[in-house]
Each structure stands twice: as C-alpha cells, then as structure tokens.
C-alpha cells in the first residue's frame, strides 16, 4: 500500500525533493561505493604524508622474502624483496592520482573547447574538428605511448599526457553531439534572441547546466582508464618504474611467482585494480543517473 501517499503529497512536484531522495537505491549504492574509493585515495595520501603506514614501503627485508599473508606482522605478506605488501598497496594509488588528474584535465579542457567550437559555431570549424578528431582516433594509442617513451623516458606523466590527448576526441564528440542535441531544442537560439552573449550561453546554459554531468562521468571514467593504461604498460615494463610502487608494476613483479603457488604478491594489487576501476565506473554511473534525473519527471 505504498501508493497511499497520493492524497497527502503531490508527487508531480519533484523540485522540492532533496538531491539524495531523487537517486534510486542502486544509484546510492554506486555513488557510495565510488566515494569510498575516492576516500581511500585521500587516506592513502594522509597515511603517506604522516608516515603512519605499518611499514616503510621501500624498506627491504631480505630475511623475509615472499612471506605469505599474516606472517611477522605483514598483513598481506611481503614481496620478492621482503617489502611490506600492504604499505606498498596503500601508497601505490598515489602513482595514479595526480597523473590521472592530468590526463583528465587535458582531455576535458581541450575536448570541451573543440566540442564547443564544432557544435556551437559549426561550419568549416566543425568539419576541421571532426577530421582532426578522426585523425587522432585512428592512431593506435599504445604505439603513440611507446614512441613517447622511446623519445623521452618511461615516465608516468608523459604517458598520461598521451592518454589525455588521445581522449580529447572522445570528449569533443560527446560535447559536440550534446550541443547539437540542445540546438534541436531551440533554446540556444532562444537565448540568443533574448540578447545573451555567446560567453553566457556557452558557459552557463550549455556547459554548466547541460554538460556538467557528461563531463563528470567522463572524468570518473578517465580515472579508471588511467589506472588500466598504467597497468598494461607496466606489464610491458614501461609504466611506473621501480622502486616507486604502483599496482601495475606490483602485479608484474608478482606474476613471476604466481605459478610457484605464491599468488599473493600479484593477486592483492590485481584485486585493488579491479575494485578501484569498478568504483570509478559505478561512481560515474550513479552520478549520471542522478544528475540526469533532475528537472524532469
């Protein structure tokens, strides 16, 4: 009998319902989980900065190589150089966070610019942008990264610049199609007719009111992608370089021992990757359905 409320409360009026109430139960779970992952990143920084980790992640202890979990105070065991897995696991999220933000930043800032150019002004600019996007899209990303690594050095920041640049077309086409969709609804034209200048229309009406959910989702997905990219590069040996820990190079280092039955040095970071990527994806998903629901019945 849950639909009793009909008489008491005018359901059609959703604008006074709070932000959280609008989200479905699954959205809340998604967002909650995603935020937990973000919180863990923050905690990692706090622990790293205050030195409150269980062990020093760089400390080599040759007495205790490849210790299984829960031996000698090492909760997740140690790796092939006797370093504490848990501490390395905690600290290694930092290998992604800032480079990931860089990749996202590049993709979103430039992608939005191109998208707006193509979608808002159109004409020759649209054609040019589309061709540049297609050109960028047709380049295999991994080859670009390997070229970059060969030309400079295997640094995560260089890699992430490439990841960001190759993501520009994705964001640009999203914004482009969104603007084209909005133009069909005439309200850009209506805003012009009212006398608003282009700047207000683009930043307020298009980007702030109608594209922010797209951009937020793109950002969360970008973070997940950065992690995945680094992992695959680490496997080739081009990712974050030892001794700086990253989940990617931890998996790679541990994989040599996997067949010997010593699975923990590779499984623990692999699980971390899994949960982190899932977290960012779900966060994007949840935010999407919540932000998009606002304002319509």
């Amino acid at each position: 009998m849950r639909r009793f409320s009909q008489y008491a409360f005018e359901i059609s009026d959703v604008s006074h319902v709070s932000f959280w109430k609008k989200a479905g139960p699954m959205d809340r779970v998604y967002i909650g989980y995603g935020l937990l992952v973000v919180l863990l990143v923050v905690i990692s920084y706090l622990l790293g900065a205050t030195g409150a980790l269980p062990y020093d992640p760089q400390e080599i202890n040759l007495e205790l190589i490849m210790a299984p979990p829960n031996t000698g105070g090492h909760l997740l065991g140690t790796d092939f150089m006797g370093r504490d897995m848990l501490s390395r696991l905690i600290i290694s999220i930092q290998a992604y966070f800032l480079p990931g933000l860089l990749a996202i930043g590049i993709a979103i800032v430039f992608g939005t610019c191109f998208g707006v150019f193509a979608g808002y002004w159109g004409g020759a600019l649209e054609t040019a942008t589309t061709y540049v996007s297609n050109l960028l899209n047709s380049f295999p990303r991994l080859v670009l990264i390997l070229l970059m690594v060969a030309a400079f050095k295997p640094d995560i920041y260089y890699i992430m610049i490439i990841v960001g640049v190759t993501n520009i077309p994705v964001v640009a086409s999203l914004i482009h199609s969104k603007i084209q969709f909005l133009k069909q609804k005439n309200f850009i034209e209506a805003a012009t007719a009212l006398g608003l200048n282009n700047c207000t229309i683009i930043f307020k009406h298009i980007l702030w009111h109608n594209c922010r959910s797209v951009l937020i989702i793109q950002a969360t997905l970008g973070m997940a992608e950065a992690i995945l990219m680094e992992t695959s590069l680490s496997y080739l040996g081009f990712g974050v370089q030892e001794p700086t820990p990253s989940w990617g190079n931890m998996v790679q280092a541990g994989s040599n021992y996997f067949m010997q039955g010593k699975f923990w040095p590779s499984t623990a970071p692999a699980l971390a990757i899994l949960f982190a990527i899932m977290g960012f994806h779900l966060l994007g998903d949840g935010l999407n359905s919540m932000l998009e629901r606002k304002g319509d019945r």
Partner: protein
Amino acid sequence: MTTAKTILEVQNLKKYYSSSKGLFTSLRKTTNFIPAVDDVSFYIKENETMGLVGETGCGKTTIGKTVLKLTPPTAGRILYDGKDITGLSQAGFRPYRKQMQMIFQDLDAALNPKMRIRSILKEALTVHERPSDAQVDRRIAELLEMVNLKKGKLNNFPGELSGGEKRRVGIARSLAVDPRFVVADEPTSALDVSIQAQVVNLLRDLQQRLKLSYLFISHDLRVVELISHKVAVMYLGQIVEMGMAGKIASAPRHPYTAVLWSSLVDKTTGEGKSVVSDLEGQHWGVFDFERPTTGCRFAPRCPVYEVKGRPPFCTNPGTPPELHRVGEAHMVRCHYPLQ
C-alpha cells in the same frame, strides 16, 4: 492607423539554403540552393499585427528568424524603426534585442530544462539591465500577473509545467525585456484547444496593454484572421497575397488563398463553399510534392491553371507573376487573379 509609424520594414528579403554539406561538396563550384524565402517585402506599423500564413516549409519561420537576425539573410534589407539593421554584427544588434523578441513554436525552446522558472525569468530581466534584487522580485511578480501564472510555479523546473504554463513562461520571458515588437511563431500550435483560446486572449490583451506589434506566424487560419490586422499568405517562399485580414478571408484573389480558406470552410459546416470548389478538379492535392523554383510556383497545384487549360505563360521561367496591387491595400501574385 494612418498616423502610426512603421516599426519594421522588410525589403526584398531573400534567404537561400545551400543543400551542400561536407568537405568535398564544398569544393565543388555548383551548389544547390533552396530558396526558403524569395523576395519578400512587407512592413508592420506600431501596435499592429501582421499574420503570416502558409503550409509547413513555406518559409514563414525563416522570415521570423531572419528579422531577428537569428539567421543571416542572403539578400535584402531589414529596417527597424527606420534604421537599417541588416548589416549589424551580433554585438551591434544586441541593443535591438531589448526591443525585438520572439515567442518560439517549441514550448520548451525558451526554457532551459535544468533551470528553475525563477532563474529563467531573472536571467531575462538582467540581460540588458542591472536591476537590484528587490526590483527583480517586483518585476517577476508583475510578469506573472501579466501572463496570469501562479506564483507557486516559480520554484519548479520547466519539465514539471503543463503546456499552457510553459507557453505563459515563454511569453513572460519575452516580455521581460520590455519589447516593442514580437515575432510570435506558432504560439498556439503545440497547445490543447482549450488552452489555445487562453493564449490568444492573452496575446491580444498584452498588445493593448503594452502597445506591442506582432508578426504572427501560424497555420491556424481562424486564429490568424482573428488576431491580425493584415495577413500575408506565403507559398514556397513567396508572398502570394497580402491585404487586410477580412479581405483575405472573405474575398481572396489568389487561388491558393481561396483553396486554403475553403479547406477550413468545408471542414467545419459545409456551408459557404467558396469560389474554388467548382474549379477544383480531381487533380488538386495530388501533386503536393512538386516544388518548382521558377515561374509560378503554385501552378502544378493550381485549379485556375487547370481550368484555363494549362497556359504555358504560367510556368514560363521568363514571366513569373509579380506581386501587384488589385485593390486598396491588397496585393496578389497571380497572372489570373480571382474576381
């Protein structure tokens, strides 16, 4: 009426759309031009309504948008209040946007779906001026009263309003800048019958109160006849007949106008079948996909053309019919105007 001054004048307005698209077609020299608006001239006096009727795709909306510089014209001149505004840049035109507004056909057009009604109206009020918050509140209240909308709706999103309410908000938003001239593009077509009458009354009311001039674009002939002082009938980008509203409806001179109004008459009561009904053969309405761009554009569908035995004069590209006077303030574009 004779002393009122002309607020808007359009001279030989042309708008061609090119049908080419893409990189390679633009390199080719020959492009297909579709004349959406072809050589249209008219003027509107202060506090006057001009109705613009015609079927879908005849260029009515394009005229409205070109007048407000939402799309650039291919050729022709637009004068507002005696000043030529054709060549102005968007920035140079901005002061005029305070005086010229548009009511869009699409109910949702003016309303950003992610903004509350209050912010939509507030934005409109602060585009050209910098009023204080108290002034904004007072003006919003005034506007709501003017368009007869409940105050409780201010905190809603556009998606939560009914069609009629959206239309009112759209009108309020256009009026927020205190315009003198309004292009009303099919303001009633998206609404229910019972709401249409409300909006028509509202628009007439506002015209009297605010001394507005309307360019009223619609395909609803009855509403146009009711609200307009003069009416222009368009067919495939050209004005085929222009005159006082009553004349156009009761004594049309162009075959198309006659057909248009007769379609209304015989649908309602069957009484007062017009002059065309006996001219009409089986052919009428069949060739509705032919859209010639030279000669008389209406010829393929024209009952008179049929009755006269298809004179080649009508379809000859060298002798297209010109808009000429046939009576007091009555122009028609036809070689054989009806009597």
